[in-house]
């Protein structure tokens, strides 16, 4: 972070050094994977103050503003890949950059993800550690709720995120009063 940035952070809420960012549109079936995993994390774990959960939806380049000033960022997103629906894939640091240089679509949202990371690097070097936890979607048609395959993967993905955070020195611990997460877009009940 440059002195310029530090000086200008005098007001408002400080930026947590670690962000877990869920990306995706919850109205488009399995595209809601990222936000759903965040709901599972919030319902089942207590996170340290150093971690911020952000349900970013489909932010386009607004994503860049969420990355600046972070030490580590973990994206959770649907990933366009040839593997079977529900397969979880992880991309770390340089792998993400390499995939983007080759113009392989790591995620349906990556035109923005690539540029946002590039902008963050220009501003303050960008986050030192980046991890993307993705699930291959079955359907991204208009509709509420995840497919069975991606729903099963989302619980596992939440555990992967919790482990990764522990590896970054920000271990969450399971809530003793944990309740099953049922976000309003899950399609269960009437919204």
């Amino acid at each position, binding site marked *: 972070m440059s002195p310029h940035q530090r000086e200008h952070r005098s*007001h408002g809420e400080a930026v947590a050094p670690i962000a877990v960012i869920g990306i995706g549109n919850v109205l488009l079936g399995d595209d809601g994977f990222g936000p759903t995993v965040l709901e599972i994390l919030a319902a089942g774990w207590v996170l340290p103050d150093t971690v911020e959960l952000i349900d970013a939806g489909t932010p386009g380049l607004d994503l860049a503003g969420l990355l600046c000033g972070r030490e580590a960022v973990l994206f959770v997103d649907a990933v*366009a890949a040839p593997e079977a629906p529900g397969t979880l894939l992880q991309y770390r640091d340089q792998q993400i950059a390499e995939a983007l240089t080759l113009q392989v679509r790591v995620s349906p949202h990556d035109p923005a993800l690539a540029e946002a990371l590039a902008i963050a690097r220009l501003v303050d070097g960008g986050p030192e550690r980046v991890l993307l936890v993705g699930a291959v979607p079955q359907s991204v048609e208009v509709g509420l709720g995840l497919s069975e395959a991606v729903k099963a993967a989302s619980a596992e993905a939440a555990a992967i995120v919790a482990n990764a955070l522990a590896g970054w020195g920000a271990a969450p611990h399971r809530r003793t009063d944990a309740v099953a997460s049922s976000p309003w877009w899950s399609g269960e009940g009437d919204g």
Partner: protein
Amino acid sequence: MTRISIDPITRIEGHLRIDAVVEGGKVEEAWASCGMWRGIEPILLGRDPREAWFFTQRFCGVCTTVHAIASVRAVEDALKLEVPLNAQLIRNLILIAHGLHDHIVHFYHLSALDWIDVTTIPKADPATAAKIAQSLSDWPHNSAQEMAAVQKRVVGLVESGQLGIFANGYWGHSAMKLPPEVSLLALAHYLQALEYQRKANQVVGILGGKTPHIQNLTVGGVMNAINLDSQAAMNMDRLYMMKDLLSEVISFVNDVYLPDACAIAGFYPEWFEIGSGVKDYLAVPDLPTDSASTAFDLPGGTILGGDLASVHPITGSRDPYFRDAVVEDVTHAWYRGKGAKAPFVGETIPDYTDFQDDGKYSWVKAPRFQGKPMQVGPLSSILVAYAQKHESTVKWTDLALGRVSAIAKQPVTIHHMHSTMGRYVARAVRCAVLGEHALRHWQLLVGNIAKGDSSVCNPPTFPKGRIEGMGFHEAPRGTLSHWIVAEDGKIANYQAVVPTTWNASPRDEGGARGPYEASLLGTPVADATKPLELLRTVHSFDPCMACACHTLDASGNPIATVNVA
């Protein structure tokens, strides 16, 4: 004759495709098309109108709050339900903060690289860049050291060979004319802008409880508890934190964004002669200052044929001049049938053909006002307000045009605003106008609370039978309207007529082109394989196809393709 096809064109995700026929170095014909089906509204059918805003704010990930506000306003309009003054003002502050955020992001992060050639920055003299920046304003972060530090980072990026990740960068193009020093100072501000758009967003978060998806709305008002003595509620600490944040963002807008927009406009005066297109303008009034939404701080209305004297005001959501004049035409859109329907009886039944130049070629419907295509967006809202002698708008517009004229060394007047560059200047002017109103509405809110008014919501009750409502909002990209029909308290029809639908509309039954299409006619194209000029005009509208039609392409195709036939 050369045909250019750019797909996708936006820097925000979305499948906007532009086709243009170039003859003799100029665009002779153009088509704007969206390649993804927009069909989110059916999710709302049968639901409780009170929860519609929760869904509509997920239409688009960039303009979340605007769809939330338009939705609750539509339901309140259907119920003829007034909202407490505190709720109006809190909503207004959210809308203003979102607008400040959005305009800053558009100028720097979504479109500046159409005008700045990053590859010239290593050649710039940082001391000269600082001197130029200091001549534009007394912003404290324009030092030679700051410029040198930014230059060093750009050199690193250029040397690493990773410049390609900035999509649509037509480096070395003959239409790039900014001196390296101006490019450097603009890029320095591009990096600083991240911090200020974030501050604007924090205001949305303080009031909305969460951002980007706010939580505090409810049909009939807001759910913010107001109690100046409670740590858990809207208290003086939070109000002052918000004021500080807004003040910092306003300084950035007035001392950085507006001067930069004027400077870039001054170096590209030829772009005040390009890209006018549809000169019929539409804007709705916004920032209501009373419970019944009959008085507004920002005026709305129409201007026809580019004649400011033709201005006709729109007085509110019940004004038939707007309410009865809007239809959506599907003749050239991939929906069943042809001709136009009013939104209350609108249908969204897909009928995909392939791309047919003279037939159907887009998933975007063609909204029309009294049968005409209308341009919407900051230029419309500024011209409509200027024509009605809106004090703040006149002040900032005249100031901006004076600055542009001084840098261009030629007179640039309100009549030059019907252009690609006019849209850029208008957006910066609107941002300054919004900033001024941010502080005014903050004062109104604090004043009203100080009088002892802490009410925030009038609970709704739904009658048996059929009701119709329309809620509008003058969003960052222009006029947004949500149209709802409810029967026995359940949603029976829901249509969102969004700004990008107005601007990116295809032709209608009578063959009239939409604003993007019309604005491209006559645009010079130096190199058909690098159609930078087309991008400049389309980006001047700030396209956001996400709510018109969301994109999800899992095909592994390259990020953008330009085909020249």
